[in-house]
């Protein structure tokens, strides 16, 4: 049969042969054929090795085991081990008079023993450990290992017999005895204590004997007598010496002897040295031995054999905790290993380098790694990039260095950089105000050479959008920079390349689109060209791009007056907030989710709301910017309405001046009277707002100081008039939302602000029954995060009539201590009875209008 299967040329043929054989075997099982049973089972095992299902043969195994002859039993047990696993329950004869059969049973037990079997058979195995035949003794010892691994409680029964095995002369039994002791020490502290007291000296003596033993052909491997025994002994000694000074002291001499005398030109010798070093590192401190051990590792590290270098790296990682200084000495060699062609070595070396980095060596190490990034192969780049980024982020001594290194990484392997890494970079850039110019120029240069690196493109596009004028005008030039001449249209080129590149994904394109909008205001000379580029995406199949394109197009074409305010530079991103938000960011940054406010009457409110949304989409910024924009928007519209003579002058001057003034008036915390408040007072034409007034009054001077631009006053006012949706919207600055909706129930929130207290929002919640049954015992509960305070007034009723014939209202008062930084969120729970059945519904309200 084996021959037939091997003759098969294709997998299909092989399957056919196997199917036929299986059929024949099944038939013969059904006939209960005694003579062929073990042959069938042998065939089945082969079939199983090829990966075919053989469960139907399991009973046959048991029948074979139950039969009398040795050959049958042998195949039976072999089948048992191969075909069955520990999930099946089997019976095993450990009391058989034939020692070979007992051996088979032990073998099977050792390989497939389950926890139940372990409990049942532990006494038998324990007895067999004193059996006269050494073959049975060693098998029983190994079986015990399996048993105590499955059921650690049984360990104490095995301590004494195991200790007696350590006095054996027979190598096979001795080695299994040592194994058993090692595993006992791992599972049972009592066993460890006992063996430490009773056996340490004996083991040291055994090791001494083995090390000094004369040539023994039976156990000789490369001139060393039984290296396996050496290794097991060293391993057990390690466990005994760990955390015990006396035991460690006892083994010092022999360890020194092993470390110095062992030949290191063959694998076997190195294996012993390796184990010895590990033992020296683990046992209680002995300076001399440690030096010896580190030297051995140094030798290993410079060995030409890759295997040896691999274990050296492995060991050095553990040595880091013991003697970091000594490991640092080998830094150069370790760095070489990072560049090895073998993935196993590279991986170890990289992990080791990661441990080696500290404040003092971070610069040279990072330089080495980044240099290597260029040469490394593709599958290693991901790992390497992640490690470099985390090293740079962790140890960077100053911002300029951090930005430099990150730019290098982005240039070399931008495609491997994770989202949160470049998000973090943008936050850092945004906070390093003195480096904006430097960064944007460096990014511009990098983009010219490496425009295929996605995340580099994103960061570059973002920075050019934000700091484009610094690029063109060489603002904030550092001494170390080479001068660079970039025209406005060059800067626009970057964004255009990014948006037109086929490989760019949606996020990049959307970021490029926003950058273009921002540039259109920063570089009036390119405005027409940008408008054309943006207009090309009006027909984009991707909804997001299409929508943005149409919005931006109308911003450029119709809303000149608000444009520059709208595209003002983003406020500095808050590092602390970002760190907190770091975890959820990857999810929310996935290509622009448009948060259409739930149930808002779209036509009038949409432009405003969408524009606000945009501000949260265009960068991984804390969403606080929304409030900012809102205020800026309102501020701009507000000024003409107040009809101050100076305003139009200021307007002529470009909104910047006004905006600047306003933003002086609105300190970063934005504790200015809330927007609706300003509006209502202006609309009612009562006393003009004092702060605004004060702010605006100096504007004529500044306006006169700088010659007025070409935009006539009339134009501007016209532009304003053609902008009705936004103005209309001023009345209800915060649209009401559907906070919760299920099949039975809908909750609508209306918002209002108390004058003079922007932090507090009054919410009127209106609940409507959507089902055809009336709801009784209605209770509404809400919970908010720590930065919010919530006060709930009693509800207007506890019964909701069926089909929306009436509603319950309840007033909530929310105070936002982080007003302007964080938006409201709320978790709600609604309990009620429907048809006398208790129903509990829960939800989270995330769609609060920004700026509350």
């Amino acid at each position, binding site marked *: 049969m*084996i021959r037939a299967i*091997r003759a098969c040329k294709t997998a299909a043929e092989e399957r056919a042969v196997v199917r036929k054989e299986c059929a024949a075997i099944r038939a013969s099982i059904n006939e209960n054929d005694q003579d062929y049973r073990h042959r069938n089972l*042998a065939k089945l*095992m*082969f079939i199983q*090795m090829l*990966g075919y299902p053989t469960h139907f043969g399991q009973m046959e195994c048991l029948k074979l085991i139950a039969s009398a002859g*040795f*050959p049958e039993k*042998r*195949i039976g047990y*072999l089948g048992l*081990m*191969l075909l069955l*696993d*520990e999930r099946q329950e089997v019976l095993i004869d450990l009391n058989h008079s034939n020692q*070979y059969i007992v051996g088979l049973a*032990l*073998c099977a037990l*050792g*390989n497939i023993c389950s926890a139940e079997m372990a409990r049942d058979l532990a006494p038998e195995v324990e007895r067999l450990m004193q059996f006269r035949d050494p*073959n049975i003794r*060693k*098998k029983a010892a*190994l*079986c015990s290992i*399996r048993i105590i691994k499955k059921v650690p409680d049984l360990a104490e029964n095995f301590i004494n017999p195991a200790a007696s095995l350590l006095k054996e002369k027979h*190598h*096979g039994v001795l*080695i*299994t005895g040592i*194994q058993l002791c090692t595993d006992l020490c791992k599972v049972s502290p009592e066993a460890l204590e006992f063996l430490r007291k009773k056996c340490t000296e004996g083991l040291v003596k055994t090791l001494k004997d083995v090390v000094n033993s004369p040539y023994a052909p*039976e*156990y000789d*491997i490369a001139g060393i007598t*039984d*290296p*396996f*025994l050496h*290794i*097991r002994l060293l*391993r057990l000694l390690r466990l005994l010496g760990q955390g015990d000074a006396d035991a460690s002291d006892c083994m010092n001499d022999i360890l020194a002897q092993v470390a110095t005398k062992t030949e290191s030109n063959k*694998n*076997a010798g*190195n*294996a012993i040295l*390796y*184990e010895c070093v*590990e033992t020296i590192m683990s046992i209680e401190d002995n300076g001399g031995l440690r030096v010896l051990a580190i030297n051995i590792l140094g030798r290993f590290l410079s060995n030409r054999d*890759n*295997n*040896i270098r*691999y*274990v050296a790296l*492995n060991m050095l990682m553990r040595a880091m905790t013991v003697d970091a200084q000594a490991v640092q000495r080998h830094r150069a060699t370790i760095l070489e290993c990072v560049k090895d*062609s*073998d993935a*196993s*070595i590279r*991986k170890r070396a990289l992990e080791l380098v990661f441990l080696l980095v500290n404040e003092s060596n971070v610069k040279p190490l990072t330089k080495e790694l980044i240099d290597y990034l260029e040469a490394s192969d593709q599958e290693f780049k991901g790992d390497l990039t992640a490690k470099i980024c985390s090293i740079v982020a962790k140890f960077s001594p100053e911002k300029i260095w951090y930005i430099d290194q990150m730019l290098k990484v982005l240039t070399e392997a931008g495609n491997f950089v994770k989202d949160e890494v470049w998000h973090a970079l943008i936050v850092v850039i945004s906070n390093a105000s003195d480096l904006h110019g430097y960064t944007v120029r460096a990014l511009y240069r990098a983009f010219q050479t490496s425009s295929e690196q996605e995340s580099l493109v994103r960061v570059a596009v973002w920075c050019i959008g934000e700091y484009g004028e610094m690029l063109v005008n060489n603002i904030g030039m550092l001494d170390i920079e080479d001068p660079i001449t970039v025209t406005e249209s060059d800067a626009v080129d970057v964004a255009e390349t990014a948006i037109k590149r086929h490989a760019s994904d949606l996020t990049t394109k959307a970021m490029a689109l926003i950058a273009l909008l921002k540039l259109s205001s920063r570089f009036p000379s390119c405005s027409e060209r940008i408008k054309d580029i943006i207009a090309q995406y009006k027909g984009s199949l991707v909804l997001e791009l299409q929508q943005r394109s149409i919005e931006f197009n109308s911003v450029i074409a119709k809303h000149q007056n608000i444009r520059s305010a709208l595209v003002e530079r983003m406020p500095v991103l808050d590092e602390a907030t970002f760190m907190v938000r770091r975890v959820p960011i990857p999810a929310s940054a996935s290509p622009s989710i448009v948060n259409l406010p739930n149930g808002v009457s779209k036509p009038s409110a949409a432009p405003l709301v969408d524009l606000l949304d945009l501000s949260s989409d265009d960068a991984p910024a804390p969403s606080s910017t929304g409030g900012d924009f809102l205020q800026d928007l309102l501020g701009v519209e507000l000024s003409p309405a107040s009809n101050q003579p100076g305003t139009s002058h200021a307007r002529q001057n470009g909104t910047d001046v006004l905006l600047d003034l306003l933003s002086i008036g609105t300190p970063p915390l934005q504790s200015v009277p809330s927007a609706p408040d300003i509006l209502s007072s202006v609309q009612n034409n009562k006393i003009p707002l004092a702060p605004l007034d004060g702010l605006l009054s100096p504007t004529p001077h500044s306006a006169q100081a700088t010659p007025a631009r070409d935009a006539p006053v009339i134009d501007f006012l016209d532009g304003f008039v053609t902008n009705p949706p936004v103005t209309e919207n001023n009345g209800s600055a915060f649209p009401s939302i559907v906070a919760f909706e299920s099949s039975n129930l809908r909750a609508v929130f209306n918002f209002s602000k108390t004058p003079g207290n922007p932090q507090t929002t009054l919410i009127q919640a209106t609940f409507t029954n959507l089902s055809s049954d009336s709801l009784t015992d209605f209770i509404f509960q809400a919970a908010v995060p720590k930065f919010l305070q919530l006060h709930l007034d009693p509800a207007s009723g506890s019964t909701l009539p069926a089909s929306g014939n009436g509603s319950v209202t309840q007033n909530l008062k929310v105070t936002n201590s982080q007003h302007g930084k964080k938006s409201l969120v709320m978790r709600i729970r609604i309990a009620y009875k429907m048809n006398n059945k208790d129903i509990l519904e829960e939800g989270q309200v995330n769609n609060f209008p920004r700026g509350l």
Partner: protein
Amino acid sequence: MADPIHTPTESTGQDPSGKVHRLVVNRDPKFTNFVEFRTHKVIYRRYAGLFFSLCVDITDNELAYLECIHLFVEILDHFFSNVCELDLVFNFHKVYLILDEFILAGELQETSKKAIIERMGELEKLE
């Protein structure tokens, strides 16, 4: 033609030999004989077209297991007198028998070539 003889020291759930095979075969002969595999390490050694692979704990001594594979191959070589792949395929049950004398419950059982060959002789006589 490669034929991995797989000896899991700890059962790793479903049979991973196919994956190990792919992992091991593609490696350059100059590379280390160790590959990390899930939570364990695969130690392999190549003899002409045959790969012998052992899956061991991450903390185990790699060099020792490398030596262990060599010892096993020497035993096979002795037993079949000049072992070749066909010997192993047609006598897979005997290979398992030797393995059972050599390794049990994932631990080394006997380090003497002579002892194992003698033991095999005894077992053969019983058949």
